[in-house]
């Protein structure tokens, strides 16, 4: 593949994915308001468009038209940089996520992943071998967005919110990272595409075909629950939303932000929810693999893997909203004790057991 075609394909993929993800974020806010409303026996948005479907558009226009205030006494450079950093780091994660296998356009095999490259004449698809680490790195840099937002705002609520956020994200990053090591031990690869491809068959135990899909959720269900809980804390969502606890801190680290700067924090938070959903789908639920449905028309057959991927991610988004509508918020000491005294030892124990099984099996 020549460099021109590669750059052209990459630019098209970047534009498409950014457009799709930002639209998905807008409609997740609609979904969240609808589902939480149903849980609380209300209607949710109904006025703008059928079923309130144009509500995200109205919200977007409102965000753009609001006055962009910069309060006095803020550290101006960092105050403006913080939301940009948060949004940029949230978007960077999507560079390594494989959404599907590959499409063939005019003889060129194009992987459905921004950093995916087609190598050689045989069309063998390659992927960077540190995909997972790039996502973890982008998440850990994203902490700066929140930390600096609170500090530069020159407001006590913002500062308290961002202190809570930094402490919480540093604490839960450990459990999050360690929970994924079990998967890496089983798969022996850091490439997300490779991990997905290993989950395409069914589990065969001692010659007996169990007809269960070869998803890593089955041997690693403890790791999955650690990952899910740590990821909820990383994305500052209920029941771990202490950095923006509105009953204590007004709005936490983004109290002083208005207009599109506030919207950027909002988008970053929802994009991080999507990253968590995509990663859970890729690592534990077999990515774009699913049962083949031969009775469907050819066009649907072609996009079936993408539909499987989207459905699995949507399930995790729904889970986020469901939990938001169900659970109350943790107290701060409970949050720290849960992370350090329960999740972290459990994650280490999971690594030891998985490591022993892999070593004895090999």
């Amino acid at each position: 593949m020549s460099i021109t075609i590669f750059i052209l394909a990459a630019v098209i993929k970047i534009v498409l994915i950014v457009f799709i993800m930002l639209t998905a974020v807008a409609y997740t806010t609609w979904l969240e308001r609808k589902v939480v409303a149903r849980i609380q026996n209300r209607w949710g948005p109904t006025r703008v468009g059928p079923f309130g479907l144009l509500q995200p558009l109205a919200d977007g226009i409102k965000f753009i038209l609001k006055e962009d205030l910069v309060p006095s006494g803020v550290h101006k450079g960092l105050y403006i940089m913080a939301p940009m950093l948060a949004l940029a780091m949230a978007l960077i994660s999507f560079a390594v996520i494989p959404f599907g296998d590959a499409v063939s356009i005019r003889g060129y095999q194009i992987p459905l992943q921004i950093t995916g490259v087609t190598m050689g004449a045989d069309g063998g698809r390659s992927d960077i071998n540190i995909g997972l680490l790039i996502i973890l790195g982008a998440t850990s840099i994203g902490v700066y967005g929140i930390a600096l937002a609170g500090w530069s705002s020159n407001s006590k609520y913002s500062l308290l919110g961002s202190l809570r956020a930094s402490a919480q994200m540093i604490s839960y990053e450990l459990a999050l990272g360690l929970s994924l090591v079990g998967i890496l031990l089983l798969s022996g690869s850091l490439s997300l595409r490779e991990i997905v491809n290993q989950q395409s068959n069914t589990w065969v135990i001692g010659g007996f075909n169990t007809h269960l899909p070869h998803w890593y959720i089955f041997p690693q269900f403890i790791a999955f629950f650690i990952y899910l809980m740590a990821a909820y804390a990383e994305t500052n969502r209920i029941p771990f939303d202490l950095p923006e606890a509105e009953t204590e801190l007004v709005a936490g680290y983004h109290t002083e932000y208005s207009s599109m700067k506030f919207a950027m924090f909002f988008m970053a938070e929802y994009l991080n929810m999507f990253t968590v959903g995509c990663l859970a789908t890729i690592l534990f639920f077999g990515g774009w693999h699913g049962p083949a449905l031969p009775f469907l028309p050819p066009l649907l057959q072609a996009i079936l893997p993408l539909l499987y991927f989207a459905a699995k991610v949507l399930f995790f988004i729904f889970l986020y909203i469901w939990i938001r509508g169900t659970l109350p918020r943790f107290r701060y000491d409970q949050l720290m004790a849960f992370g350090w005294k329960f999740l972290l030892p459990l994650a280490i124990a999971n690594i030891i057991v998985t490591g022993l099984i892999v070593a004895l099996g090999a």
Partner: protein
Amino acid sequence: MVHQILFIIFALMCVAGAVNLLRQTHPINSALSLVVVMASLALIYLLLGAEFVAAIQVIVYAGAIMVLFVFVIMLLNAGAEERSSGSRIALIIGVPGALVLGVLVGWIMIGQNKQLGSVAISATDFGETHFIARLLFRDFLLPFEVTSVLILIAIMGAVVLGRKES
């Protein structure tokens, strides 16, 4: 060619970050300059083909250690430092000393170029996670474990220092 241009860009970014780190009076600006230095170092590692080290550099240094630095600066609410006039001894001895040291190191490096040898980074698995793991856990197992014990001792020291007298 592209590699050389990228290397120069990231190296300049790295040096500029380091100079800015010393120039700034506010601790948080200095800490953020250090983040820029770490990130550009990671990019230089990536150019060398050491992708795993680059990712770990970002996650551990830029993402964990520097976040703790920033966290502590925020927690103590440290304000801008005053710029002192600087000591005269540092100016008289330090600047020529640094110059002499720099020239000396450069002269030795250029003069002894032949003896220093080189590292082949053309091997296909150089910088891959498997390759580094094999080095760490097979060839250099003892130094690796001793280092981890060293870190453990440091943590225990911090716990002892941080404990309240009862």
